[in-house]
């Protein structure tokens, strides 16, 4: 078989270069893809609005979340003058509590998700990259933690600690990091055999440099997915525990603990059983949609 002449090959390359558009960075391409993904944009919009509203609770909220209405110390239905969404059984303004509750629920979700992902990235990268005994030990730890259904672990740990939001974030992060580790470890195992990593190694790059500058950026699409669905999952976990009254304790409101006594007010105040649950549902749903959308947008493998 005749080898193609060198000059032909070069010419082909030049033609390719001329016909191709200017190469696009990962972020630029992701941005372009996202602009066409209306569902993800909508979900992103909902999350941004909810975040801004809840984080600005102290400015927006008409009342103090723990103050009861001095005149009506009882449950008022939505639409009552002065209380758009009514009050709860102690006469506290429901809208105010929703905003403050969302602040805590979202803050816990965001910070715990970042913390779990940080632990997951470090442990996943090291155990995937080095392999061997480090990986064996890490596997043992992960399998052990994953073998205890997380609700039991959470219940156990929740009883040990003070129920402040900070300690709560630490607890759910220390329990929930294994998913991130599994994900990053799996990716690292694949990527470390790739030519560009072998090449970097041959050029004398330090393991730290290879792990964080060469391997980590290639897992970006998975990181976004893990982050968004992690926030969603952690909001679900927090609301479940707070609902069961082993999470954040009243009078501090969260979307979860606002539902704790809802079943006692089914007939008198159905708004107490519906609104905050609906907000959790919408928030988590949007986060899952965003996760999927970002993964698709940042996936370097797919082509348009």
């Amino acid at each position, binding site marked *: 078989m005749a080898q193609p002449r060198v000059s032909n090959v070069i010419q082909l390359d030049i033609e390719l270069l001329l016909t191709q558009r200017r190469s696009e960075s990962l972020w630029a391409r992701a941005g372009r893809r996202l602009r066409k993904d209306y569902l993800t944009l909508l979900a992103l919009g909902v999350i941004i609005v909810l975040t801004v509203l809840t984080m600005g609770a102290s400015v927006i909220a008409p009342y103090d979340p723990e103050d009861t209405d001095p005149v009506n110390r009882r449950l008022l239905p939505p639409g009552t003058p002065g209380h758009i969404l009514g009050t709860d059984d102690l006469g506290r303004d429901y809208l105010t509590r929703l905003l403050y509750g969302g602040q805590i629920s979202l803050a816990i979700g965001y910070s715990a998700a970042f913390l779990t992902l940080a632990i997951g990235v470090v442990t996943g990268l090291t155990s995937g990259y080095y392999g061997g005994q480090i990986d064996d030990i890490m596997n*043992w*730890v992960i*399998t*052990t*933690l*994953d*073998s*205890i*259904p*997380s*609700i*039991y*672990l959470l*219940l*156990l*740990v*929740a*009883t*040990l600690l003070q129920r402040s939001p900070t300690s709560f974030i630490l607890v759910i992060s220390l329990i929930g990091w294994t998913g991130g580790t599994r994900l990053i470890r799996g990716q690292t195992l694949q990527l470390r055999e790739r030519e560009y990593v072998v090449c970097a190694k041959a050029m004398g790059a330090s393991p730290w440099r290879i792990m964080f500058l060469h391997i980590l950026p290639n897992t970006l699409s998975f990181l976004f997915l893990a982050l968004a669905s992690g926030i*969603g999952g952690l909001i*679900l976990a927090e*609301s*479940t525990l707070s*609902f*069961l*009254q*082993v999470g954040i304790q009243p009078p501090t409101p969260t979307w*979860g603990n606002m*539902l704790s006594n*809802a*079943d006692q007010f*089914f*007939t008198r105040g*159905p708004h107490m*059983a*519906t609104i905050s*649950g*609906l907000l*959790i*549902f919408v928030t*988590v*749903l949007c*986060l*899952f*949609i965003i996760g999927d959308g970002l993964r698709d947008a940042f996936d370097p493998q797919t082509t348009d």
Partner: protein
Amino acid sequence: MFRYIVRRLIQAIPIFFGITILSFALMSASGNPVAALTFRPGMTPEERDRIAARLGVNDPWPIQYLRWLAGDDWMRWDSTGDGIADHAILVPLDANGDGEPEPPGDRRGILRGDFGTSFTKKRPALDILVERLPATLELSIAAFLLGTPLGILIGIIAAINHGKWFDNVSRILAVAFTAIPTFWFAIMLLLIFSVQLRLLPIGDRCKTSLDDSCPPVTERLQYMVLPVIVLSIGSIAGYSRVMRASMLDVISADYVRTARAKGLTRRMTWIRHAARNALIPIATALGPELTFLLSGAVVTETIFNYPGVGLTSFAAVTQRDYPVVMTVTIYAAVATIIGYLLSDIMYGLIDPRIRFD
């Protein structure tokens, strides 16, 4: 195959010990159990010390762990039959230094099924678990029997109607039901079906009776409807997604095209050739499913006041009844390990391409 199962069982041993160490560490972190055991006014500090010495709460923690795991009837025992301990290993014969040996150990450890005595109910913790197990099993089995076939069926129909309305609706619902908080979904069902429409009971396992017993399942199905729906909705969503993806993978495979080319009807190819092979990934989902049913039951049973293991463990956690909490945790962990093992074995049995040697 046999060798594979044995190997997997051996691999499960370090995990089991990991679980016991973790549980024990958490239990120890919760503080001294003597305070809970000696909650009796008028008890002198000397008496309390004696109980502490007998329980060994001041021993180094590896000894305490070993006592919890394997018991202490072999640590300090009585060989002469006079009721006074005369031999001891690992622990001193006279722990509190009052010149008299402590009584012989009487605990057998969790490895021999002694999970201690419930603080609140003053009965063996294991008995409490065993007593509550049937209620949980009846819910889990019902949820499993409803959720798995339904999820698989929806997945198959969605894949066959790829891109049509059924596919789109089922995909949207699958994401929605993954995002819905279980407890809120349960509350909404109660609000609609029990409070507004008054169709179903608001909770419990059956009508309250004096002797706390329940009639056979067939006479109290209405009590099971809502809990089973709540428990199975997650697996329906999960299975339908897995099955749809797997079915779409298989439908474009060569052997399915061959089957069509041989002249088999569409229906025949989908059921006989595609669906059967598409079922393989479902086998791997069965292990996590078991975990899910066990842990999902805590929330569901608590909301519906259904007296199973989940409700018991939740009550034990709020009352800080650690022997019961530990029993349930270890039971759930062992069930999870077995679940994963079963799903690996099933994976091998269903898929002939997998070899274990």
